[in-house]
């Protein structure tokens, strides 16, 4: 911590006051949170969409504040709160994604007064922001828990059948256990270092001198918590079930937003810890290598056999997590490709889930086989879905390809620096899993176009806006694939 007890209390107050502006977006979110609760309680009965309007408004203003914050690099609240472009961009992505998810929910769950779901969403976003902006374990834990609890609620919120309830339970219990384990690990780390800021020199020194066995336990326990949020192997087990069970809108949420915050946190953690030449650095590095490789393998291989599109997407997102970890591994003080891949990932997943949901609405099923022969019925939708599949595999001319390319570039650079076999292996696995992923992603066009089903029974749907949104996102996927500079220059500027 950056100050001492000897400092007069007034300085502390001044400093806190000075830090308030840095906290503006989050304050706004808090305000929105309360506002939505209130509106859900009192206005929601009469004006169905009022809460949603408030929600959107909050999001928009937040985004505005955030982009105003872009250039700032500062720390506040005596070093607990830190702001840099990385976090700001991440938060913008989160907020935007949150907005889309909000729209998604609003479109799909019109019935009944479910205004307070928006407040929960806002809470989740808030938690995410906290994750992005802190290097302090307390805040990190608070953030994680906020996000988690919000997510539990979201999963359980609409539960109308066994599956959804079960999903909620599995998610909640598994999450809580992981959180508990992480907390225990944190306590150990605290004990070993006497510091709660993982970037602070005290903590690093503490870790350097710490006895290896205990340190091992501590680190792995901590990673458990993060692993649960990012759902990488071996903490991925919950995600297929939960993805399948949860309502599609919520699945879309789970597969994108919570990962971003956790990823940013992990990035900071990794960059802070892997910098030294001591045991814990080696441990962190080898851990991330191992996890990313296994995640890519397990995720893509397990997806081969899936018959349910949502499960399939769950495994695919596990694979993508592995790839994101690859990006984290190669992260060296320059974030463009990391952010770019995150954006690509969010974009692709949101669009995909929007279409999945639209199809679920029409066919009443999320089984791949239900798509048989629909390609001719809904050519545009399935063409877009195919484009998304191509992007998820990582083929040009889509944003997915650029993302992959950038990550490969970065990793290859590290390989060139430190001539390590493991890194090369990482690269090769990253490349080969793309081939494997082709198998299952192309099940979608395979069923839609190649399979023949003369009389597919489909009901017409009313949520047109959503599908159009999907088309727009798909267009972005291709556009940004052809001219990534638009986005990249934005990030790098």
């Amino acid at each position: 911590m950056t100050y001492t007890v000897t400092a007069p209390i007034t300085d502390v107050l001044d400093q806190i006051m000075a830090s308030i502006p840095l906290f503006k977006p989050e304050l706004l979110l808090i305000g929105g949170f309360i506002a939505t609760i209130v509106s859900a309680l009192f206005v929601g009965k009469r004006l169905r969409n009022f809460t949603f309007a408030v929600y959107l408004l909050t999001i928009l203003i937040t985004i505005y504040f955030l982009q105003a914050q872009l250039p700032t690099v500062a720390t506040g609240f005596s070093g607990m709160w830190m702001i840099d472009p990385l976090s700001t961009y991440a938060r913008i992505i989160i907020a935007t994604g949150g907005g889309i998810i909000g729209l998604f929910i609003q479109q799909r769950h019109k019935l009944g007064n479910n205004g307070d779901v928006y407040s929960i969403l806002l809470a989740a976003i808030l938690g995410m922001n906290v994750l992005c902006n802190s290097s302090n374990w307390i805040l990190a834990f608070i953030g994680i828990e906020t996000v988690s609890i919000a997510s539990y609620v979201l999963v359980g919120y609409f539960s109308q059948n066994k599956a959804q309830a079960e999903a909620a339970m599995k998610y909640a219990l598994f999450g809580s256990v992981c959180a508990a384990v992480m907390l225990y690990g944190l306590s150990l780390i605290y004990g070993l270092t006497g510091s709660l800021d993982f970037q602070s020199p005290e903590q690093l020194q503490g870790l350097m001198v710490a006895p290896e066995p205990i340190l091992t336990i501590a680190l792995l326990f901590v990673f458990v918590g993060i692993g649960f949020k990012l759902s990488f192997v071996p903490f991925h087990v919950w995600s297929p079930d939960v993805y399948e069970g949860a309502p599609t809108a919520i699945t879309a949420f789970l597969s994108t937003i919570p990962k971003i915050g956790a990823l940013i946190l992990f990035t900071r953690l990794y960059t802070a810890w892997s910098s030294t030449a001591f045991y814990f650095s080696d441990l962190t590095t080898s851990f991330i290598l191992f996890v990313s490789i296994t995640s890519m393998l397990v995720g893509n291989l397990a997806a081969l056999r899936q018959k349910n599109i949502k499960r399939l997407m769950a495994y695919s997102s596990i694979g993508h997590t592995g790839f994101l970890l690859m990006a984290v591994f190669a992260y060296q003080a320059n974030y463009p490709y990391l952010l770019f891949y995150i954006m690509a990932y969010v974009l692709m997943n949101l669009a995909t889930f929007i279409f999945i949901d639209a199809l679920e609405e029409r066919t009443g099923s999320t089984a791949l086989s239900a798509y048989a022969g629909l390609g001719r019925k809904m050519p545009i939708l399935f063409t877009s879905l195919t484009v998304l599949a191509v992007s998820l595999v990582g083929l040009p001319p889509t944003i997915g390809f650029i993302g992959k390319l950038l990550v490969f570039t970065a990793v290859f650079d590290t390989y060139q620096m430190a001539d390590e076999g493991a890194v090369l292996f990482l690269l090769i696995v990253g490349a080969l899993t793309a081939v494997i992923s082709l198998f299952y992603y192309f099940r979608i066009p395979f069923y839609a176009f190649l399979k023949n089903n003369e009389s597919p029974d489909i009901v017409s749907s009313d949520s047109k806006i959503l599908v159009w949104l999907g088309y727009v996102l798909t267009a972005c996927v291709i556009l940004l694939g052809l001219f990534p500079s638009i986005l990249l220059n934005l990030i790098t500027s």
Partner: protein
Amino acid sequence: MNISPIVASLLVVVLPFSAFVIQAILGRRSVSGNVALMAISLSSILSAGCVFFVVWTGEATLERITWFTIGTKSFSVGILLNKLTVFMQLLVCIIALPVHLYSRAYMKGDDGLHRYWMYLSLFCFAMLGLTISINLLQLYIFWELVGFASYLLIGFWFTRDAAVQANKKAFLINRIGDLGFLIGIALLYAQVGTLDLVELFGKSGFFSTETAVHDSLQLLDKNSAWITCAGLAFLLGAMAKSAQFPLHVWLPDAMEGPTSVSSLIHAATMVAAGIFLLCTVFPLFNETVLLVITGIGTITAFSAAIFALGQYDIKKILAFSTISQLGFMMVGVGIGAWDTAMLHLATHAFFKCLLFLCAGAVIHEMSHVKAHTNLTFDPQDLRNMGGLRHYMPKTFLCMLIGALALSGFPLTAGYLSKDSIVVTAFEWAASHGGSYFIIPAALILVSVLTAFYIGRLVFKTFFGSFSFREHIAAGKPSLHEPPSMMLWPMLFLAACSLFPLFGVQPLAYQQTWIIRGFHVEVDYPAQHAAHLFIPLGLTIGAIVAWTVGWQWYVKQKYPLRVDNSWVQWANRQGYLNELNDTLFVKGTLKLSDLLYAFDRYVVDGLTKLVTWVTQRIAVFAYWVDKHIVDGLVNLSANTTYYIGHLARHVQNGQLQGYMGFALTAVILGILYLIIK
């Protein structure tokens, strides 16, 4: 006429081609064959008048243009006119012309006649082009086109399975030779860096002594391994085209084509192309290669003659005799006296073509008989013929001349050429001495056998009594001379098969203008005795053979006159004859059958075997491809798939199972990290 030889020779080549194109366009509308006929006759006139006489008396000329450039090397096409080429070209024309005439009558009424003329013109184009090519690549192109045309003509009656089989066989075996040729070309190119005949061997070919050895060849050792390989490769090409043992198997089958075609392509011209090629690249050959050539020639000549003895199919006999005569020419080249080879090539072209045409006439008539008297018999089988000279005397006459020429009786062209080869071979052997005498000895034996089997053919066909006399006696005059359209070409060729065409002196082959035209220096001394004895021996041998044949096939064995003072002697003679009979004739025939069987089942069987084995290998390769190569691919795919299946075992839906799995993983990790 004042056309330059170059232009004229170009016209000679182009005319048949244009005929081919015209007929291809006209299609069924042109069945008369007038176009082809006109083209070939014009070619003949031009070739004789404006090319041959100019170049033969004057000196060689050439014309070439750059065809294309690869990298820095440029390949040229052009026309090379020297004695050899113009001679060959003229020969082709002179043979092709009568065959065209003959075909008009012979092929009349065949549906698909338009194709026949088309193919024939194509063949003439290719063959004529082959003769005057200046570049080995160009030569190769025409070489293969010739093979292609012959493929088409053999398979002319493509509904007959035998024909189709035959033409496939012919093309494939020729393809082997073509490969040899191609490899030879490639090797030569790799060693010397050019394929232009002039750059290789000098302007007027190798026979004008001053340019005999070309500088580009001087640079490299003629006896180097690669040059030997190249020579052998070229030999392989020649062997396939000229049906040399063991690649001769395609020629007998090729008789499935129309007889006129056989006479032109498979007797006179195309099969001679191999010899022509060898003469063209002659300077390339070193002692080794030459010896191989001689050996192969001898084996071919001998074996084919033996096979011919046992045949009953009239065309097969002629086919085998062709092979055997080609063997003679090979020997001629092999012993370095390629001029004798060319001489024999020329004379053989005439009389063998004649023989085929006559055979064609006979078959033609026989099948008429077959058509009229609804009998079923093979119109080509000797055993069904006999006594035909009463019905078709002119044909008989021509056939007789041809046969005499083939068996090398004096006053015929065959006498000159055959003697030239045998005598030179003898001289060659004399200079090398020792076991080399096998060669001339074999040749002499072969020529006796030749005389015998051709005599047999003549006797069996034209003497004795006709098998189906009673049917014809029934009044239908269905057996008569062929139409004049067929007769005239035969007579013409018969005339050409006599000595005057080649030299004023009927007995001295040195005096023939061909030999004097390309005078070759052979590096061994002349044996004047040989020039006397060998011809004599040959003639006597031939006569003996014919008499035996006469005895056997005409007189139906020895009519004994009891009231004759010669009886005892005759008896003894008879005993001798018995002896002779048992020993030689029967023996020879047995041997013939035996060897023919060998040829059928071993040599030809070998090709069949090769085909079979290749197919088996192919099937095996496909099996490997399907089950192993592709199998591996699918296996890896399935393995991946299965691993994916394994990865799902964790997902059993048990929450605590999940937790257990995750935490166990962590614990294991911790343990590993602590222990290691």
